[in-house]
């Protein structure tokens, strides 16, 4: 049996209804921004439960442009976590600010109890990452942000439809950045991203920042970027956003099956805490396991497309050299990097594939 990580050919086996609508747009040549992008933005803000959504070129750009809109740049520091996709750090660097990492908690995302120690007089912003769809503990984070007068940009790239403490991820900070990358829970047919905010001023600034600072065809307020969500991709987004609830529910269902089976393998597998006040959306289903590399190879041999997110934490990447970190600075993230593994958990799996994955893991540990 094969258990693939990607499901795109299945998801788009019948693209005809979307293609028909795209054909209409192509016929009139309406390729850049316009009413279809606005329609998607409105659907997105309704779904997330915020006032404004701004479509941009990618999740990376959503984070980067958020920082620009909040006036964060050279000389400023932005705090994020050591275990995240490289784009989180890249966005901070691109904005000209300095990256400060903090260690991870048992749930693989920012350990908020270690946050305050990382704050300096140059800190301007905290960028919590709801990595893998696992929300960061936002209540204490917000209290720290308020106390130190810091901005908060939520990296919600993996976390559409996630919630913590009754609040939706992406609505809690000053802005939220979402990715629509093909492998995200809400995906399009290429790169795209969305910024969410409840602040009108930030919204207006972002609309200029993503489109050359263009007030109208002949007036430009400031030098800015080209980072637009393609109109044809907005059409894809409008169609697929209707499925997000179902997608999340399927992933939660499979994750719960995994949790219940693997809780019997506690000698080999450590399941993270699963508090009841969170809605985790399982963009990835991640665990800490013994003999990770062996298990990984074994599963791949068995046709199960398991992955490691990621074997090298960001502070130990060559890209971090100038930041002055070394091995041992973030012991939890470093330990997790050695034991972490992700299993396919997407909505197009069938129960048999989930059971097969469970069986093979059990077989590996001879349990």
């Amino acid at each position, binding site marked *: 049996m094969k258990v693939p990580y990607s499901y795109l050919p299945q998801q788009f086996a019948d693209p005809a209804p979307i293609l028909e609508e795209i054909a209409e747009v192509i016929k009139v040549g309406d390729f850049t921004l316009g009413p279809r992008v606005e329609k998607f933005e409105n659907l997105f803000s309704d779904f997330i439960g915020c006032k404004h959504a701004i479509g941009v070129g990618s999740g990376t750009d959503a984070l980067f442009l958020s920082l620009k809109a909040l006036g964060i740049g050279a000389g400023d520091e932005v705090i994020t976590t050591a275990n995240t996709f*490289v784009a989180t750090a890249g966005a901070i660097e691109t904005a000209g600010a300095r990256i400060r990492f903090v260690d991870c908690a048992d749930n693989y995302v920012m350990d908020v109890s270690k946050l305050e120690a990382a704050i300096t007089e140059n800190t301007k912003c905290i960028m919590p990452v709801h990595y893998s769809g696992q929300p960061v503990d936002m209540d204490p984070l917000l209290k720290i942000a308020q106390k130190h007068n810091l901005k908060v940009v939520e990296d919600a790239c993996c976390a559409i439809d996630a919630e913590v403490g009754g609040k939706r991820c992406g609505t809690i900070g000053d802005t939220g950045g979402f990715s629509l990358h093909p492998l995200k829970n809400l995906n399009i047919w*290429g790169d795209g991203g969305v910024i969410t905010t409840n602040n009108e001023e930030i919204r207006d600034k972002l609309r200029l920042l993503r489109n050359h600072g*263009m007030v109208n065809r002949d007036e430009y307020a400031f*030098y800015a970027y*080209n980072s637009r969500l393609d109109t044809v991709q907005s059409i894809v987004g409008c169609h697929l956003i209707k499925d997000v609830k179902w997608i999340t529910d399927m992933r939660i269902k499979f994750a719960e099956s995994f949790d219940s089976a693997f809780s019997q393998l506690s000698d080999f597998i450590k399941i993270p805490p699963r508090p009841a006040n969170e809605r985790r959306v399982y963009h990835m289903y991640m665990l800490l396991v013994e003999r990770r590399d062996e298990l990984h190879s074994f599963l791949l041999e068995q046709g199960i497309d398991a992955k490691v997110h990621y074997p090298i934490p960001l502070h130990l990447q*060559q890209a971090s050299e100038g930041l002055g970190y070394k091995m041992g600075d973030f012991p939890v993230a470093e330990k997790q990097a050695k034991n972490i593994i992700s299993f396919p958990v997407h909505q197009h799996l069938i129960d048999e594939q989930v059971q097969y994955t469970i069986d093979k893991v059990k077989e590996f540990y001879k349990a």
Partner: protein
Amino acid sequence: MEVKYVDIGSQYTEHRDEYLKTIDEVLSSGQLIMGAEVDTLERNFCELTGSKHAISVANGTDALVIIMKSLGIGPGDEVITASNSFISSASSIGLIGATPVFADIDDDLNISAEAIEKVITNKTKAIMPVHLTGKCADMTPILEIAKKHGLKVIEDAAQSIMAKSNDWLSGSMGDAASFSLHPLKNLNAFGDAGIITTSDDQLAEKMRLMRNHGQVSRDDFVFWGFNSRTDAVQAAIINKKIKYLDGVIKNRRENAQLYRNRLKDIVKCPVDGEGCFDTYHLFVIQAKKRDELKAFLDSTGVQAQIHYPTPIHLYKAASYLGYKKGDLPNTERLAGEILSLPIHQGLGPSQIEYVCEKIEQFYK
């Protein structure tokens, strides 16, 4: 009669089934980011431009930003460009923290080599000629000046795919070049896309990493980069459209010739430079009473446009640079005279004839 300035719809209708099938095939492959179509696009661009490397990115603006970042240009540096361009030519320089310095243009609307030399300082790091309208800037003296002063040359080739200057293809003459595949360009995607070309191996490698998070392999990142990729779907569409590009340019050049035949004694028409092959992304005449002419054409169903009514150095966005009216006299004078007539490949002789009649009528 209505003569539209752009008619993307007609380009599409002709090949509708081919394009929709192409998108469907990409979806079936499941490879929506990078992959075979993107590789093919880059190989195609090496051929189209006579360059050793082509690196696809998200748009033409990003192409310029990535080139300059990779060349190590940044705060404290100056880059010389033209002020009569789309804002990205200058804003890309501002965005990397460098200072745009504007040089005046010649009557062919391209940057003047003589004017470039006058604004070189000890902070100048690069010259960015814009091959505006599909006409190559006069590269021989520009390359000489660059060599003399040790400057990099970045071609802004957003409008000039397949344009030639003395057998050199645009995009192959400087250290690197940027192309835009924006929907309004001669070779156009169904959204944003851009290409960088260069024949410098080291620079190419750096730019490849920079457009994709500095990612060497899935787990290794050598520097913090951007996410600026051409979508595979868009790459596949462009790969299909490339085979029509010769035809597109041929039609545009024929339309240009029809305009010249009829209008050469009435308004100043663009002509191919000596040894040049222009591709007429725009057909920009220089006309007296321009605004009245434009209004008259509008009233007769002819859509003309102005590229661009305000030069970049006079935008609010450039106010921090301290330029004022009068600083670039030729650029400013021409901004009041230029008018882009409809020239797209979907137009035929009868429509061009109609536009010419109306212009004749206006000046009678």
